[in-house]
């Protein structure tokens, strides 16, 4: 009894009872939480690209903070996914030691966003969807997921406000900013529909009250997005949706490259700490 130090990774309140049920349902539950975790993790990594590159210092701080919130949400969700899985994987194992095909994020978030208009268009889509999702997920029968959602909902409200302000300012700005904001929306819109796709979600999770049915978010999310787009004097893009598949591990060519950069240090120096 000479080692009073606790383990180094933050234990979130676990819900052991969740892990003791039908293994197939547990697997679906893990995948569902991983999907939300990976959306946040991949978005955080993409947002990090903007640090030192934003158009002004205040924006640099804003994007860094938004990325940090997303990273925090991802950490809680990844830790929880690891607990439900019950195989001893912690947040770091899940973030750094899974390969591209094991990531469950939507394709919206994985593509590079090195144009400011694209970054804001995407943040508008992501934060609108996350705010509707987390509002509903606060009533999840998975108490840990409900707690993470209640926390994240308040943070995401700030992200949404930030993206909305920029889309309004750029859309209803100069001829140049209007054209570029419209182009950015046109580029992001084909990826919106995947957020509502439920072909890779176990319906039992929705029936159990663990998950929120993605299709139920479609109408409120699209309505809120279209309101902002119209207020910004922009046109709601009329473009065909891209094929979904991110939730099943089928990604664009961009995710693997992003992960190579994100995971490189851990994989080159396994177990390193500082």
């Amino acid at each position, binding site marked *: 009894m000479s080692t*009073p130090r606790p383990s180094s990774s933050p234990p*979130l*309140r676990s819900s052991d009872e969740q892990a003791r049920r039908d293994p197939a349902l547990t697997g679906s539950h893990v995948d569902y939480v991983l999907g939300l975790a990976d959306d946040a993790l991949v978005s955080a990594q993409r947002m990090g690209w903007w640090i030192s590159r934003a158009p002004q210092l205040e*924006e640099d701080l804003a994007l860094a903070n938004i990325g940090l919130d997303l990273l*925090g949400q991802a950490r809680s969700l990844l830790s929880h996914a690891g607990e439900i899985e019950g195989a001893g994987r912690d947040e770091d194992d899940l973030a750094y030691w899974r390969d591209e095909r094991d990531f469950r994020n939507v394709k919206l978030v994985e593509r590079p966003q090195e144009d400011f208009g694209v970054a804001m268009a995407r943040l508008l889509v992501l934060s609108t969807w996350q705010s509707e999702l987390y509002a509903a997920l606060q009533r999840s029968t998975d108490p840990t997921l409900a*707690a993470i959602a209640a*926390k994240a909902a308040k943070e995401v409200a700030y992200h949404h406000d930030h993206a909305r302000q920029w889309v309004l300012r750029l859309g209803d700005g100069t001829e140049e900013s209007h054209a570029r904001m419209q182009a950015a929306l046109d580029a992001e819109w084909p990826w919106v529909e995947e957020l509502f796709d439920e072909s890779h979600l176990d319906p039992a999770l929705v029936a159990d009250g663990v998950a929120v049915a993605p299709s139920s978010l479609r109408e409120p999310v699209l309505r809120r997005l279209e309101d902002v787009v119209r207020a910004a004097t922009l046109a709601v893009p009329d473009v065909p949706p891209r094929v979904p598949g991110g939730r099943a591990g089928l990604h664009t060519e961009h995710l693997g490259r992003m992960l190579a950069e994100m995971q490189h240090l851990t994989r080159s120096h396994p177990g390193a700490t500082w």
Partner: protein
Amino acid sequence: MTDTHDIDAHRDTRAWHVASGVVDPELPVVTIEDLGILRDVTEDDQGRVHVQVTPTYSGCPAMETIRTDLIDALTAEGYRHVTVEFVLSPPWSTDQITARGRARLEEYGVAPPPTEEERRRAPVGLTLSVRCPQCGSPDTRESSRFGSTACKSLWVCRRCREPFDHFKVL
């Protein structure tokens, strides 16, 4: 364990007293008790201490330091078995900052968030102005909703022209 959640009863203990003295690493004028992020401290009959803290924001990078500082502070007081747990529910809100915490933030130059009471009394649809912690003027403007840490926004005072941090409402 802490299932009884009679937290007030735990506030008289020596372990709570020690834990509540740990300061926020980014805002060293306030303790974790002042910020309202120290949720519970329990000590069993074997002298084992279990501390529950909640983050301000999910991604708050100060949490690991707070964990280490809690263990160091309690270990220095003779507690040999200390565990720190991060809890998320109920989510932290700026309304959990104590009156002393608010006063200390203001003295330090960080404008505290409006209280629940102040927000309730404000006319519907009006945003409360943030008072400059330097000169006290209410004539200020927000320059960025995101500041040097996740919990703060950046403001500028129109009267004394000084920039300052504001602990934003969450």
